[in-house]
């Protein structure tokens, strides 16, 4: 009997990322705009090639994140096992310093107002948020955005160094793409394994990796353990913090802030079912290049009756099984086969996957005067242009170019096939056949990738009602306290007892407003109007008390 577990996963379609940083900014506004977290970006967007954030985090010879195989063939933490962790607990030798991220700053805005009258315009000088002293801004989370300073900075890119034999950074041959990153919510999280106090955990319902703020003691080993450097140390509270996959949002079925606000609509969220008992075995595959297939073998087919039976046995609710069947993640990884994990060689089994970008290839091809969307040209170029392929392979498939090539060929086939459709020509099944697909699947894939309808991009089952009473905000334990339940209000009538949780009230009111064409149906809110959702139009019933019946 397999132990089936559910995992919320994400796929990002890199071809559509325009590097606008909206995801980073909205995430920061929602989660890390606090003292002690000034330097922290749970979501960041890096330009590749580039050093990344924190600088050169991918250089695991330096940072020792993730897992490695020991001489006995068993997994062990690259930074050292339990005893070594405890012996280095007083000063972690592998801890990045604030300068590896960047020194956060603010400006002396007050000077703009308080400076005495003078010939010169007053300036707001930058001040370090760490020391409080005036500072010189030397680095930031995206200092090398859009290849800025690339001739000097890009050679330090650890991925680039691995393929440097093939790569030229001459201007005319330069290539770049954006890589938005959040926590990978790995199946085999090395940060969790590194935490001495056991404060980090993987939620068994949805696989989200969280830090228990009440149990974290600030030993800092998780920061070292994570090869993606996506666990951060709050230097004010002395606790580790990380991306939460916006669990308060996904619990009520709405996507994460980064996904919701993504301008390019490039993020997909859905469920994956996996066999929890086989994770360690799959992560210990000897050949790094086999790790991708090993990870895929751990993920289960939600349509397989045996899997469904095992999942029921493991206590996964029916609507979650339905969501798993409709999961865009499963489609992108298995049915269309276009998504790849980020650095599978770290052996953490990451669960935020990427569709590698085809655009560098198309651009280079178009620049050389060829028809960049013709199937034959594209297929040829993918193989010929070893620069992006080798680089992409170092990022997405442990250096094996084959999986990347296969994905790019499928994306290229989709472009060519759909061009014929759009131009009203006959559908050319041979293009689809060449990449092992059918025209029908290609059109489905096109729909998911290009149309990217909201409800197809995000298939997020809600946290369960019977479990819902135990969600953080609903700590009263009475699930009838809101949404028309008889338990509305406490024992002494409305407004006694605990207030209805704000998130729940807002969520239902917002949904209400989105689905109806009536302004603020006050009766649903029992004579109250939620002003947070009132758009200022009209005067909904209940905004004012009813006038006395005139009779």
């Amino acid at each position: 009997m397999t132990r089936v577990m559910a995992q919320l996963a994400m796929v990002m379609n890199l071809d559509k990322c325009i590097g606008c940083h909206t995801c980073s900014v909205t995430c920061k506004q929602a989660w890390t705009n606090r003292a002690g977290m000034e330097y922290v970006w749970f979501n960041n967007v890096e330009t590749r090639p580039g050093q990344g954030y924190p600088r050169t985090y991918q250089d695991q010879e330096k940072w020792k994140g993730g897992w490695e195989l020991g001489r006995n063939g068993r997994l062990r933490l690259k930074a050292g096992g339990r005893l070594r962790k405890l012996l280095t607990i007083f000063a972690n030798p592998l801890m990045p310093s604030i300068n590896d991220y960047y020194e956060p700053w603010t400006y002396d805005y007050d000077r703009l107002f308080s400076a005495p009258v003078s010939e010169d315009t007053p300036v707001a000088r930058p001040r370090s948020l760490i020391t409080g002293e005036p500072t010189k801004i030397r680095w930031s989370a995206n200092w090398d955005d859009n290849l800025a300073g690339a001739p000097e900075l890009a050679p330090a890119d650890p991925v680039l160094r691995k393929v440097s034999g093939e790569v030229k950074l001459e201007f005319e041959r330069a290539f770049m793409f954006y890589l938005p990153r959040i926590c990978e919510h790995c199946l085999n999280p090395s940060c969790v394994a590194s935490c001495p106090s056991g404060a980090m955990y993987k939620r068994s319902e949805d696989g989200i990796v969280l830090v228990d703020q009440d149990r974290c003691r600030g030993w800092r080993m998780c920061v070292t353990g994570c090869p993606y450097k996506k666990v951060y140390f709050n230097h004010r509270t002395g606790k580790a913090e990380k991306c939460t996959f916006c669990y308060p949002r996904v619990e009520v079925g709405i996507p994460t802030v980064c996904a919701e606000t993504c301008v390019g609509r490039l993020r997909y969220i859905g469920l994956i079912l996996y066999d929890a008992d086989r994770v360690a075995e799959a992560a210990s595959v000897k050949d790094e290049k086999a790790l991708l297939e090993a990870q895929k073998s751990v993920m289960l087919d939600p349509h397989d009756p045996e899997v469904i039976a095992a999942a029921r046995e493991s206590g996964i609710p029916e609507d979650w099984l339905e969501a798993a069947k409709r999961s865009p993640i499963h489609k992108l990884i298995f049915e269309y086969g276009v998504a790849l994990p980020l650095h599978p060689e770290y052996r953490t089994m990451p669960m935020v996957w990427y569709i590698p970008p085809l655009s560098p290839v198309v651009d280079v091809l178009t620049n050389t005067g060829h028809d960049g969307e013709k199937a034959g040209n594209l297929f040829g170029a993918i193989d010929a242009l070893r620069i992006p392929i080798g680089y992409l392979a170092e990022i997405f498939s442990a250096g094996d170019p084959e999986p990347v090539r296969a994905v790019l060929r499928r994306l290229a086939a989709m472009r060519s096939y759909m061009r014929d459709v759009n131009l009203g020509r006959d559908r050319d099944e041979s293009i689809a056949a060449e990449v092992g697909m059918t025209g029908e699947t290609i059109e489905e894939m096109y729909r998911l990738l290009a149309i990217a309808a909201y409800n197809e991009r995000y298939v997020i089952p809600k946290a369960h009602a019977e479990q819902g009473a135990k969600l953080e905000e609903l700590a009263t334990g009475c699930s009838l306290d809101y949404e028309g339940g008889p338990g509305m209000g406490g024992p002494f009538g409305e407004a006694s007892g605990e207030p209805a949780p704000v998130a729940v009230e807002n969520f239902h009111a917002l949904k209400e407003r989105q689905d109806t064409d009536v302004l603020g149906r006050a009766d649903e809110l029992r004579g109250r109007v939620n002003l947070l959702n009132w758009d200022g139009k009209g005067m909904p019933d209940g905004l004012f008390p009813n006038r006395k019946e005139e009779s």
Partner: protein
Amino acid sequence: MNALDVTLWVIVPYVSLTVFVLGHVWRYRYDKFGWTTRSSQMYESRLLRIGSPLFHFGILVVALGHIGGLVIPKSWTEALGVSEEAYHLSAIVLGTIAGVCTVAGMAILIYRRRTVGPVFTATTRNDKLMYALLALTILLGLAATVMANIVGGGYDYRTTISPWFRSIFYLQPEGSLMAGAPLLFKLHALSALVLFAVWPFTRLVHMLTAPVGYLTRPYIVYRSREDRAGSQPPRRGWEPIGRP
């Protein structure tokens, strides 16, 4: 035994230990979020990498030495065939080495705390009080050892201080044993008692949650949403149906 001796060696120890225990219980119940090392390694790690291990390993050996000297009765070691001279010599050698390491580490850490801008900015008044008490206790302890054994002719604290220390836990305090101890030992003990009383309210609480459990727990921790430690139990009268 006069009133002062009773106060210092009977009342103060009990007050201090009570505050130590209840303070930790209180802090654990009401300030789990504040229970942290509040590491400043992000700001500076060059000095920390020398000072912190030196101090911590030093103080761990010192703590072990105190357990050996205070908790284990002299009759036990003698029953094992360890003569007073052998015990004394090993205690002095080991204690001095560990003590010097601790003091050196502490000096580096305090120097770092004062001179490195971000570290100093992150230092609270609470920290400063704690550092002062901790430094005082350690220096007095080292001074007492040095004065008694190296300068003086040696002092067998295992016939006075140790029985006094144990008598507190037997609930039959013998304050008179302490009354005759050398001044430096008295001051060291008093300073330590004050330190224990403020201990639960400082960052020193991290010692009590030293993560030794890490050695035996499985690497990957799964937790269900339901048994989340931070979630509050339902209030009385609001328990959902179906719970025994």
